[in-house]
């Protein structure tokens, strides 16, 4: 998981955004689509179910109405005077033309009014019958027929028989058994309760068929009517015969629904049983019809979903590109800047975060550019200053050329001491200038201080004595120029001059622990304890004050000349070589002072070929 996540972090932001947008556009729309589909299918199923049950209930009702009117007809027939007389008196009545004609017209009236009636017959208990359009096929007595018995068994209650088969009675117009429904009712003597006869009415099945066919249950659904035994009264053609063995199912309730598999196909069966006819109207409704409706809505939903997908894809790609593109541009710009190309124009034509970022970056680059320029300028100025100082050094040439001339003149005159003095002074100047070099050979520096001491010695003949001891290994080294002279000067003016009698200055140069140590020792007056502390403090504080650099000679305002010389040396050494180096002072009053200069060992001029010494220092 974690590694995958890490991998995700490596994806381009564009891909991440695309996937992100796709997810937030497609997953909710998928969920919504599924939810709507589910809801619709539920609602559709429920709705169609209630609707169909209602429909079937209505069909059942109209069947009842139809049956009711037939029932009324049977009552009407049995109430007729002439029919009663026929039942009482028998067939002799029919011998009379008028009676027969009256009965004929009476019965004909029904076929006039009810074209649904295929035939009417009134059968007397002895088998004699009265009918316009029906007659017995054979001599067999009609009272032996099963329908007659059923009518008697029903005791005056109306009874319907679907598909009356094998009857010995038929309609003159050839209606087959399968085309009619028979209605029988016994006519009973109200006093004795004996059956006087049976009214038989054949109803055309067409009426029921039309009623049922008129109701469309979807594309493939259909209605059928079964009697209380489960035998179909009417079943539409072209339908797989429905298994009536399931009629137990609908005996439990007057109406309801259940599912059933017929011919490997799921069917929804809805039924309504009429309490009047005891017939059950059954709606057979293939599941796939409801499914069809659901399918149709689903079709649109799926279409909608795919449309959303396409739109979502377009939108996500567009959006993510619009977000990632400027970032990518910014990144590529940064890369170019990284490579050193500072002159990249960033078109900050946008006000969003990326635009702001770009702007900031742009400003940053501008700042950097400005700083670079500044540094360049400063460098330039520094160089100019150096040049100027060089020029300033040039002028002294004239001075010591003149001094040379003076030396030559004094020698010519025989003034030896003056000659020597002028030579030393000339040397002093020459080395002090050293062609502008900051670092000079140690030998030169020693020469320089010798010249200086020579001059001073000439001045303080009785008071100053000096010795210089340079270690042989140090002779080829280089040092920063004029670091000895200020210290020696201090030693003379503040040490030797202040004491009584002859003072000695001893200068020793040696290598020690990877450093070049130059010790200037005098036996002068020395420094008081507190002054020594303040001197030391002043020396330490003067060290690299970072940027303030060389430029500020703000040292010991008290006009302490001592401080100035020492500080100058200290600053120069430390600025050039670091805090490891510098000056340290040891002193005791009336005994003398030792100033030690710690200088790196330089084997070469101007370069910091001091590794050896640093190594030595580190190893220490």
């Amino acid at each position, binding site marked *: 998981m974690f590694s995958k996540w890490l991998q995700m972090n490596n994806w381009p932001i564009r891909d991440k955004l695309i996937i992100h947008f796709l997810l937030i556009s497609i997953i909710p729309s998928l969920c919504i689509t599924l939810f709507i589909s589910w809801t619709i299918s539920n609602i559709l199923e429920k709705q169609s179910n209630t609707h169909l049950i209602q429909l079937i209930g209505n069909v059942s009702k109209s069947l009842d109405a139809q049956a009711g009117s037939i029932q009324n007809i049977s009552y009407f027939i049995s109430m007729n005077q002439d029919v009663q007389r026929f039942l009482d008196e028998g067939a002799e009545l029919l011998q009379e*033309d008028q009676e027969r*004609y009256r009965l*004929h017209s009476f019965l*004909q*009236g*029904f*076929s*006039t*009014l009810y*074209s649904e009636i*295929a035939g009417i017959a009134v059968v007397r208990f002895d088998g004699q019958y009265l009918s*316009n*359009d029906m*007659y017995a*096929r054979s001599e067999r007595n009609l009272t032996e027929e099963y329908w007659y018995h059923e009518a008697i068994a029903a005791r005056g209650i109306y009874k319907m028989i679907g598909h009356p088969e094998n009857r010995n009675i*038929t*309609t*003159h*117009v*050839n*209606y087959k058994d399968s085309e009619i429904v028979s209605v029988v009712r016994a006519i009973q003597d109200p006093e004795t309760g004996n059956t006087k006869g049976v009214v038989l009415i054949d109803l*055309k099945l*067409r009426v029921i*068929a*039309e009623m049922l*066919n*008129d109701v469309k249950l979807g*594309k*493939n659904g259909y209605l059928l009517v079964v009697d209380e035994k489960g035998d179909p009264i009417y079943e539409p053609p*072209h339908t797989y015969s429905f298994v009536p063995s399931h009629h137990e199912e609908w005996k439990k309730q007057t109406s309801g629904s259940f599912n059933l598999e017929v011919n490997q196909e799921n069917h929804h069966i809805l039924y309504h049983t009429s309490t009047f006819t005891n017939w059950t109207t059954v709606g057979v409704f293939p599941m*796939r019809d409801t499914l*069809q409706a659901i*399918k149709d809505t*689903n*079709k649109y939903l*799926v*279409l909608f979903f*795919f449309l959303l*997908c*396409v739109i979502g*894809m*377009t939108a996500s*790609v567009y959006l993510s590109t619009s977000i990632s593109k400027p970032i990518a541009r910014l990144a590529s710009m940064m890369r170019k800047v990284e490579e050193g190309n500072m002159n990249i124009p960033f078109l900050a034509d946008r006000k969003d975060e990326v635009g702001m970022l770009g702007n900031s970056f742009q400003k940053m680059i501008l700042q950097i550019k400005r700083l670079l320029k500044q540094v360049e300028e400063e460098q330039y100025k520094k160089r100019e200053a150096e040049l100027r100082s060089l020029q300033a050094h040039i002028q002294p040439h004239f001075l010591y050329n003149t001094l040379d001339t003076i030396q030559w003149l004094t020698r010519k005159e025989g003034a030896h001491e003056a000659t020597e003095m002028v030579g030393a002074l000339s040397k002093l100047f020459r080395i002090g200038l050293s062609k502008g070099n900051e670092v000079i050979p140690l030998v030169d520096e020693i020469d320089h201080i010798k010249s200086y001491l020579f001059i001073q010695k000439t001045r303080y003949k009785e008071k100053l004595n000096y010795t210089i001891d340079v270690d042989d290994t140090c002779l080829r080294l280089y040092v920063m120029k004029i670091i000895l002279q200020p210290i020696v000067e201090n030693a003379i003016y503040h040490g030797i001059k202040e004491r009584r009698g002859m003072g000695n200055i001893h200068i020793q140069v040696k290598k020690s622990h990877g450093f070049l140590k130059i010790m200037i020792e005098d036996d002068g007056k020395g420094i008081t304890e507190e002054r020594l502390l303040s001197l030391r403090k002043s020396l330490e504080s003067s060290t690299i004050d970072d940027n303030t650099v060389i430029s500020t000679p703000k040292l010991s305002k008290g006009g302490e000349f001592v401080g100035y010389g020492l500080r100058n040396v200290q600053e120069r050494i430390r600025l050039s070589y670091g805090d490891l180096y510098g000056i340290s002072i040891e002193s005791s009053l009336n005994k003398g002072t030792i100033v030690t200069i710690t200088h790196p060992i330089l084997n070469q001029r101007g370069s910091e070929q001091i590794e050896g010494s640093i190594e030595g220092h580190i190893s220490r």
Partner: protein
Amino acid sequence: MKKLLSLYLVVILVAFTFFYIMFIKGDESSQIEREIGLQGSIDEKYVMVNFLTGIDYWKNVLKGFEDAAALLGVSIEYKGSTQYDVQEQIIVLEQVIARKPAGIAISSMDPEALNEAINKAVDAGIPVVMFDADAPNSKAYSYIGTNNFEAGVTAAHKMAQLLNGNGEIAIITLPNQHNHKERTEGFVTTVKEQYKQMSIIAIGDGKGDLWTSEQLTLQYIEQYPNLKGVFVTEANGGIGVGHALISEQKVGELKVIGFDTDKGTLDMVKSGVLSATIVQGTWNMGYWSLMHLFHLNHQLVEPISIQDSTGVSPLPTYVDTGVSVVTQENVEHFYIK
């Protein structure tokens, strides 16, 4: 961009596959069943309009009509005047037209009286055919029924055969009804032209009623003692005549040719009261009427124009359903077993 396009392609492909599996493939299986032959819809209502709707004669016609309807899956209605009353029939027809049925089959009681109503129906775009009794001057598309003149001719030949070509004959008919008129004409013409020894002494109006015909016969028997034969152009009259013969005990003496094959008539032929009866193709009338109407309604005919602009009828204008003679020898075949 290429990535996006290929993504689109994938989505569209998936959509198509999905649709194919979900809908097209599924629909194929559901379309097998059904669609056998001509099929109408149960909403189409074809109406049969006639007169004296209760009489047995129509039952066979109606059966034919019903059978055709069951075959085509359409619904039908049976309407007409309950009485022998032209005005009532016109009113019923008008009512039927107002409901705009899919087609109307009419048997007109009077050859002229219904023309206006029939034309109105045709003008309203309702297919109309005549059956059994024509209205020749109406705009009805066709007539399906017996060639009544020929039926009369057939009856005349049979009568001549029965009477050995000689004797006085009375005709009981419905003089106002076109088909009965034609039957009478056919009979009279044949007798006059081919059987010179035979003469028609009376043509009476039986009103299509058993009782009236019986009374009329009794009157003729009394009036014309040499009466040898009676031709009745309609069923109820035949039975009435039969009853008259029975009551006068003239059975066998008077040769009677009836019409149609209702139960009573057949019984009388069987018992010898009636010498013969003419049977019509009543079932065919109903059946082919509906077929004609169905073809018109579904515009299965050529030329299609139902409105009569070309003057060419889209249907056979006349379908003869034929007649045959039933006598005691073959009467058993006409009973329903």
